[in-house]
């Protein structure tokens, strides 16, 4: 079987339709499990009380916001270098989900900041770089929206995404660079994590749920983009979509 045939939007369209439930249903289950573990199993925090429980959505959302930007840049780069339309469409589809997670992490961060720091917004390094990340997403989306020719929009977006991706390491290292009140990273890949096991479990389950949700939503949006751009292609004309 030649997997490259799925790089054609028309071939991928029905495949994407079949894939969506395989991501959407596990995502819903994991959200339910993760929220249950987060709210009822994980112990109350010694310092922050129950207010800390917002991290079960805040931290996965912040991770997704950064990862999706990198993923978007990679897809846009592939679409640009190999002239692959489907990859470029994928990048456009990811952008909105990424922007949504960025907004979500900013809003939950503000709600968490009020009881713990006593303020909704502090000009802390990570918050500021997340805000900049949101601006970068907005730039990408509005550049693509301003260009009428879809092929030019894909390539221009790719240049912008690749230039902007320099910002993502700055976000990651900002905690070390600028010395501020945001707490340091509590999850380390090497060494023992400094949080309780149920908390970590809930956070990882929520992260998995967010990933599956992103894949499902991006595929749905990808199908819409394919329909919109390829509406004149004979394959769709026959079906009458």
């Amino acid at each position: 079987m030649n997997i490259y045939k799925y790089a054609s939007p028309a071939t991928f369209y029905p495949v994407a339709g079949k894939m969506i439930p395989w991501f959407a249903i596990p995502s819903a289950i994991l959200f339910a499990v993760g929220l249950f573990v987060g709210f009822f199993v994980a112990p109350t925090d010694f310092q922050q009380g129950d207010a800390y429980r917002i991290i079960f959505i805040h931290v996965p959302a912040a991770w997704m916001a950064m990862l999706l930007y990198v993923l978007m840049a990679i897809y846009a780069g592939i679409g640009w270098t190999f002239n692959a339309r489907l990859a470029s469409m994928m990048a456009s589809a990811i952008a909105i989900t990424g922007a949504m997670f960025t907004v979500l992490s900013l809003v939950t961060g503000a709600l968490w900041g009020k009881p713990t720091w006593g303020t909704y917004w502090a000009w802390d390094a990570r918050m500021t770089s997340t805000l900049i990340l949101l601006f970068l997403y907005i730039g990408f989306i509005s550049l693509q929206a301003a260009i009428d020719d879809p092929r030019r929009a894909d390539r221009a977006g790719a240049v912008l995404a690749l230039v902007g991706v320099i910002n993502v390491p700055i976000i990651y290292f900002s905690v070390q660079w600028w010395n501020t009140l945001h707490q340091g990273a509590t999850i380390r890949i090497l060494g023992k994590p400094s949080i309780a096991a149920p908390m970590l479990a809930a956070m990882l389950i929520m992260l998995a749920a967010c990933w599956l949700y992103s894949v499902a939503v991006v595929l749905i949006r990808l199908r819409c983009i394919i329909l919109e751009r390829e509406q004149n292609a004979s394959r769709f004309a026959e079906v009458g979509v």
Partner: protein
Amino acid sequence: MLRWIVWRDLMLAWRRRSDMLSTVFFFVIVVSLFPLGIGPETQLLRTIAPGVVWVAALLASMLSLGRLFANDYQDGTLEQLLLTPQPLFLVVIGKTLAHWIVAEVPLVLIAPLVGLQFNLDPDTLLILFASLLLGTPVLSLIGSVGAALTLGLRGGGVLISILVLPLYIPALIFGAGAVEASIMGTSPAAHLYLLGAFAIVSSLFSPWATAAALRISLE
């Protein structure tokens, strides 16, 4: 080739001196508006001076970005430049250098003068001058990518600010940081080194990105 491009753009700019002057006046007026809006307390003005001067410099340099490629695009020169056997990034470097000389250097020169309005001491004025001298090439270089991407688009002027201003933020942080450090009496060297590093990195990468963006926009 490089020299020819720079020379040509400088000549064109010289024949339209009013464009150049309007950028400088914009900078001076924006900076002067802040004391009027905030009040004349010396201490407060001194605290906000680095940020105000730097933000005004960002806005002023962004205003002039539209002219970087737009005129050549409209009269077809840019298309001819793309067809020359010389590598496109040389053309881009030349045009960006000319833009820096025309639009940014006057701001750098006048900045110590507007700094006086905020009661900055001579050492700080020198640091302000140095930070702008190191930081404005970053603005021109990054801005050229945005200018190339938005070439010929409707609403290009607003769009370019959405694309470019977030990318200016590191330069703003460390540029204003250097001046602030000098006001606080600590060494601004670290900030200036980082600004210099940004200038080097952006001069390595952004001409290629701009060249790619120009090819995309002119297809």
